[in-house]
């Protein structure tokens, strides 16, 4: 009986988690991949580990600490790159390691054993609380509304920032808001996939989507679908094989990416052969 309740809870949590993780990761991921900020996002992720460590040490919710660290480091890097006072990639590299160092130092300073450390590094569905799921649900809603209303503004600013500056004085504000939302998305997904693997949850789905569409809104849709397939399948495999969920999700996503790539190659080749063998190729491009 108790096993059933546990199983039911696991399935609901897993399913909702998969839905919300793929929505948030699909929206945020499309933004970071098309704006080429994958490395920055990696920096944010690892910097947020410092917040987790301080949270442990000071006895407050580590996710709150991670959120504060994540947002501050995201804003810091965006600000520095706007002012062009420092090489952005170096700044990110420093932030990346510094966050991890702070995290490790404070976790070791915390008296007693920290059983959840592994779950923060590699993700674990077992430690995901109802509050985590609710937070991810709210985050999904916020992102859907934000991207829904400001779709074109976000699209155009990240496409050509310097041109956007010629017509809008809101460019920096939009960048800061969007980057903060990305940082929050990353932090909330850390519970699922872990610090080390969460970035792939954001970057692999848009790359799968970009194999067959170049339209921004469709990349978002396909990313969410690909993310859901990867996450859900990852859960199931993780549950039956007893391995960390983060690793199985990423593994599944990469396999999916390779699979789609091969399928597309075969389809393209078959279509080409068909056209070649058919009547005279009438397509003429100038």
């Amino acid at each position, binding site marked *: 009986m108790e096993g059933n309740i546990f199983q039911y809870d696991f399935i609901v949590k897993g399913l909702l988690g998969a839905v919300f993780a793929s929505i948030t990761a699909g929206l945020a991921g499309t933004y970071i991949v098309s704006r080429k900020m994958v490395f920055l996002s990696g920096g944010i992720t690892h910097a947020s580990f410092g917040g987790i460590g301080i949270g442990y040490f000071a006895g407050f919710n580590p996710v709150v600490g991670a959120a504060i660290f994540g947002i501050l480091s995201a804003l810091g890097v965006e600000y520095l790159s706007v002012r062009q006072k420092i090489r952005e990639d170096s700044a990110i590299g420093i932030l990346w390691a510094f966050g991890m160092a702070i995290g490790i130092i404070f976790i070791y300073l915390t008296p007693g054993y920290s059983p959840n450390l592994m779950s923060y590094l590699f993700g674990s569905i077992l430690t995901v609380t109802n509050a985590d799921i609710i937070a991810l649900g709210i985050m999904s809603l916020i992102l859907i509304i934000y991207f829904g209303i400001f779709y074109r*503004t976000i699209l155009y600013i990240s*496409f050509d920032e310097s*041109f956007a*500056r*010629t017509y809008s004085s*809101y460019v920096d504000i*939009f960048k800061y808001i969007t980057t903060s939302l990305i940082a929050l998305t990353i932090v909330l997904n850390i519970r699922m996939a872990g610090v080390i693997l969460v970035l792939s949850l954001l970057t692999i789905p848009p790359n799968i989507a*970009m194999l067959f569409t170049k339209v*921004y809104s469709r990349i978002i849709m396909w990313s969410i679908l690909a993310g859901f397939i990867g996450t859900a399948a990852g859960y199931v495999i993780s549950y039956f094989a007893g391995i960390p969920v983060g690793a199985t999700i990423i593994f599944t996503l990469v396999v999916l990416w390779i699979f789609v790539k091969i399928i597309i190659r075969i389809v393209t080749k078959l279509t080409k052969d068909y056209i070649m063998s058919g009547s005279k190729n009438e397509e003429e491009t100038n």
Partner: protein
Amino acid sequence: MANLFEMHSLSASYEANTVLQDVNFVVNESDFIGVIGPNGGGKTTLLKVILGLIKPSSGRIIFNFDLKNENSIGYLPQIATSDVNYPVNVTDVILSGMMISKKIITRMSSADRKKAREIIDELGLSGMEKSSLSELSGGQMQRVFLGRAIIGNPKLLLLDEPGNFVDASFETNFYGKLKDLNRRMAILMVSHDIGMISSHVKSYACVNRKLHYHPSSEISNEQLLAYGCPIQLITHGVVPHTVLKQHS
């Protein structure tokens, strides 16, 4: 003839480095001005001051139209600063020119889309509406960015080295297009290549820290030197002295 803006003893600098000094400059409604001068002389900076991207360190610029509420300035940047692999198609790029008046409102009306289609036809880009930038040639891409600059029907069009990308087959067409546009908007065109633009512009602004306005489309090497605005003519091969018509 109404003037669009006036610069009064305007200076602009990057940190301690003064790029424009004591510039007085008036641009009128139907002007077609070639902005020439050596590299690093401040041509692009002049455009950036007009666009409001750089604040003058002293002096001022007075606009005689409402910058905030009109599609007042169209801008074609020097090098496409955008990423050609970004997931956005030709129609979307041209539509982004409408943001000049919309600021942060995000829905494009069907009138906007209709206008984008007209611009696409006008610039000979039909059939490429859905193409992504990576599928276009340099010249086609340049036309897309010209489309973005003019879709809002601005009063003033700023072009930064448009000749760099224009392919030979469209070149005559491109300058013809600019001539058409000049009937409804003033044009400021930055170029390092006087030979290329001399038959198209109505007057010159020579920029080398200082700005000298030359109110004629013909300009001689002596005049350029007198303006402190040496232009290298090396690209014009064997022509020994000047490639421009002398004053008749």
